[in-house]
């Protein structure tokens, strides 16, 4: 088990009701963690999202380490 910090934005923050969670997880990869949270919070399908680990874009296959900060990124709409 590892501990990661997950910060939520936009639709994800609306679904969770909190901006940030500290999570104990057995997830190996970012995509595993998303699947876990998707069930709990009724998140949208992964296909339309990106992920950032420690404030940098990452692959969904990237390994999660203890203490990582993770952000799931729904489709952006700046400007």
């Amino acid at each position, binding site marked *: 088990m590892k501990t990661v910090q997950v*910060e939520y*934005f*936009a*639709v994800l*923050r*609306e*679904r969770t009701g909190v901006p940030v969670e500290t999570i104990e997880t057995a997830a190996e990869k970012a995509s595993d963690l998303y699947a876990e949270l998707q069930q709990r919070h*009724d998140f*949208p*399908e992964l*296909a*339309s*999202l990106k992920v*950032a680990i420690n*404030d*940098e*874009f990452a692959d969904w296959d990237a390994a999660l380490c203890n203490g990582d900060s993770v*952000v799931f*990124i*729904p*489709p*952006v*709409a*700046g*400007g």
Partner: protein
Amino acid sequence: MNGFRIQSAALQPNVDRAMLQSEACGGFVSFEGWVRNRNEGQDVLRLEYQAYEALANKEGNRIVAEALQRYPIEHALCVHRVGALEIGELAVWVGVSAGHRDEAFRACRYIIDEVKHRVPIWKKEHYLNGDSGWVNCEACAHPGHHDRPPEKSKEPGA
């Protein structure tokens, strides 16, 4: 004075524009994104912008650096607002100064196009009919949350 920045205070294009002036520059192009009163056929009351600031600043600064490398321009700056915005307010400003106008136009266009596609900033529209929705998020529609119907558009906004 090159780069990208996010702020919750109202943008001041005059102040930022003055920072891009140079006696070597003959051309200056700026883009302003204003909050419209309609989008995708719905009457919009107000907007809310939310940013993942740490990564938005990194990615925004990368985009401006790319523009400075691709085009022979002098200065380039992009400022994006976050928080609650009313109709007509300035949401994003891009300014580019260059020796000649062609490069200034192309670099300004490059920056706003890339910012809209790549920088983690989200926009929630509040509609006249009481609904609201996160723009461009087809997967966000959710019965019971008063989100608007899924969008078909792949192009992010104006």
